[in-house]
């Protein structure tokens, strides 16, 4: 059981962190070189036009006024309009369109990480110091050493270009399932934004399968990294648990090795893995930036990279803050889950 006091303390600790995060995001616009107003109006605009835009954006106000305004705006997620990438579109809209894409990728990646990492870790622990164990450990270390931006393009070349098993880029077979506005056929508005869920909601099985095959390769690439960390954590946690007295007791009572490992060992060994899954989510988000770039997926990661390249500061601020918020909330969730699973942690 999670006590109210623990939850409250954890939430209060969030306040200074979020405050600091917002301040850093505010600093992006004000420390970065170049005049935001100049970026909007372009090099050839007159001085009057420039001044007008500066006034509109409130750039002529004292810094503290701008800071307070930024904080109130950030609290309601108002970052104004994008300067360059999606000129005139509110940042909020751009983020709400691209964020689900990234979340879908991260969730699929985490799924692969767990589905492969947990069994590998258990096998590695049960067969400690055998060939299987060594192979798994070396495999895991290799997995975290190979950069996504290297394995990704090479896998595209071999599995997509040469073997034709997977589509090379995008989220769905575009010409078949999308209209001219890149919206899913049959919908006026994006439903959840998760293409696999939307296609299912529409009952279009072909489109769903297309979406899944598009997601497989990128999420596998991003999932390898999680798999590596999860399997090693699972291994060491499992090794610790199976040395406990209650495991010996269960065995002494005549319970079979397999049942003991699965029923008593596995469940308790999972607890520390929860933390890794949470910490993992951060690098999964970072990995999403690279994976999206490699696979040409229009998520919030590619949006951030483009926005930085084009000095589209409101968009940079919006996307960076979104990433930080998401990461912070996941960490909060992990802490709460962890204390639920292991109440000793609250002390």
């Amino acid at each position, binding site marked *: 059981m999670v006590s109210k006091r623990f939850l409250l303390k954890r939430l209060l600790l969030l306040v*200074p*962190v*979020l405050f*600091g*995060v917002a*301040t*850093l*995001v505010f*600093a*992006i616009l004000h*420390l*970065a*070189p170049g005049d935001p107003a100049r970026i909007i109006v372009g090099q050839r605009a007159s001085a009057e036009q420039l001044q007008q835009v500066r006034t509109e954006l409130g750039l002529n106000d004292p810094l503290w006024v701008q800071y307070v305004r930024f904080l109130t705006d950030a609290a309601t997620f108002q970052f104004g309009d994008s300067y360059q990438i999606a000129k005139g579109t509110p940042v909020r809209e751009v983020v709400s369109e691209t964020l689900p894409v990234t979340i879908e990728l991260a969730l699929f990646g985490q799924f692969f990480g767990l589905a492969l990492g947990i069994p590998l870790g258990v096998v590695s622990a049960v067969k400690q110091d055998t060939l299987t164990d060594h192979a798994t*450990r*070396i495999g895991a*270390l*290799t997995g*975290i*050493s*190979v*950069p996504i*931006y*290297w394995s990704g*393009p*090479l896998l*595209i*070349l071999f599995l997509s*270009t*040469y073997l034709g098993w997977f589509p*090379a880029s995008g989220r769905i077979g575009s010409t078949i399932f999308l209209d001219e506005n890149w919206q899913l056929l049959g919908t006026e508005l994006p439903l959840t934004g998760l293409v696999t869920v939307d296609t299912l909601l529409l009952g279009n099985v072909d489109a769903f399968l297309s979406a899944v095959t598009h997601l497989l390769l990128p999420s596998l690439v991003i999932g390898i990294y999680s798999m590596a960390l999860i399997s090693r954590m699972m291994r*060491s946690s499992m*090794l*610790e648990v199976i*040395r406990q007295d209650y495991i010996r007791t269960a065995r002494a009572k005549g319970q079979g090795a397999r049942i003991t490992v699965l029923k008593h060992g596995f469940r308790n060994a999972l607890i520390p893995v929860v933390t890794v899954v949470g910490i993992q989510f*951060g*690098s999964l*988000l*970072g*990995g999403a*930036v*690279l994976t999206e*770039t*490699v696979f040409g997926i229009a998520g919030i990661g590619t949006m*951030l*990279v483009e926005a*930085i*390249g084009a000095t589209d*500061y409101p968009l*940079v601020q919006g996307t*960076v803050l979104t*990433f*930080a918020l998401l*990461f*912070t909330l996941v960490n909060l969730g992990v802490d709460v889950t962890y204390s639920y699973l292991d109440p000793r942690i609250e002390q």
Partner: protein
Amino acid sequence: MSTDTDTDVDARSRGLVARLRASPFLSELLSNRLALAGLTIILAMLVTAVVARVTLSYDALTASRLGGTIPDRAPPGWIGPAATDQYLFGTDASARDIFRRSAYGAWLALKFGTVVVGVSTLAGVSLGIIAAYYGDVADNVVMRTMDVLLAFPSLLLALAIVAIFGNGLWKATIALIMVYTPRFARVVRGAALAVLEDEYIEATEALGASDPRVLIRHVFPNTLAPITVQSTLNFGLAIIDLAALSFLGFGASGAAPSWGLMLSRGVENGLLTGKWWMSFFPGMLLALTVLGFNLLGDGMRDALDPRMRDAVD
């Protein structure tokens, strides 16, 4: 090693060897074959880097050689036409030798990796020890700032800082120093807090030792072990992150022989039409180097963790 009276062996160095041999950490580490493999990879990369730095001219490596006798995008000599067989890794889109450029890439990766890890270790150690020793306000100011930096996924924070400072290899390095410092600060603060509990610190203070003396002579040496592990593991990550920033276009630029940049140019210049060697080889060296640091760091962690040591017995 024999312990007989070998006159060639200097008594002092024999003492050192004996001391090292007696250290459970080192003997554990040296008996770990994977850690030794990691160390071998790192040393091989270091030799490659230094040889490349000394023998190759940076200008020659970066200048375009289009229009010469050497074909561009030629596959490695051992699979391609006989005329290009002097190029072990093939040539890139500007007809430059990928082998020499990749070798020089090792120098760039190790150099900038050392700067990132070195500076963030120093900064993290100082901040962590100060936070632990002075507590209260100092602790809160330092650690809450670190919390803010840790609230970003690492590559995202690096990108946000790059958005402020602009592009370039040195700027990317500064961004990564800011990303890595909190990790060291957190580890060191924890280790230092544990040391400060010990009674000998109180005794030293009672004897009138100054703050810097306590911190440098007594607290710092006791945090060395976790720092070394953390530095080794983060060295691999720093190399990957630096190359990632170059890959995304925010780090190395122009024709610099950085692994990340060579990789992204290789992808742009024809990976999908089957010209795999332009991105494969720089990426292979990158992955190998990172694997070396991960193997060594992993072995160090196991050697340090007494629970793991017991588990092996």
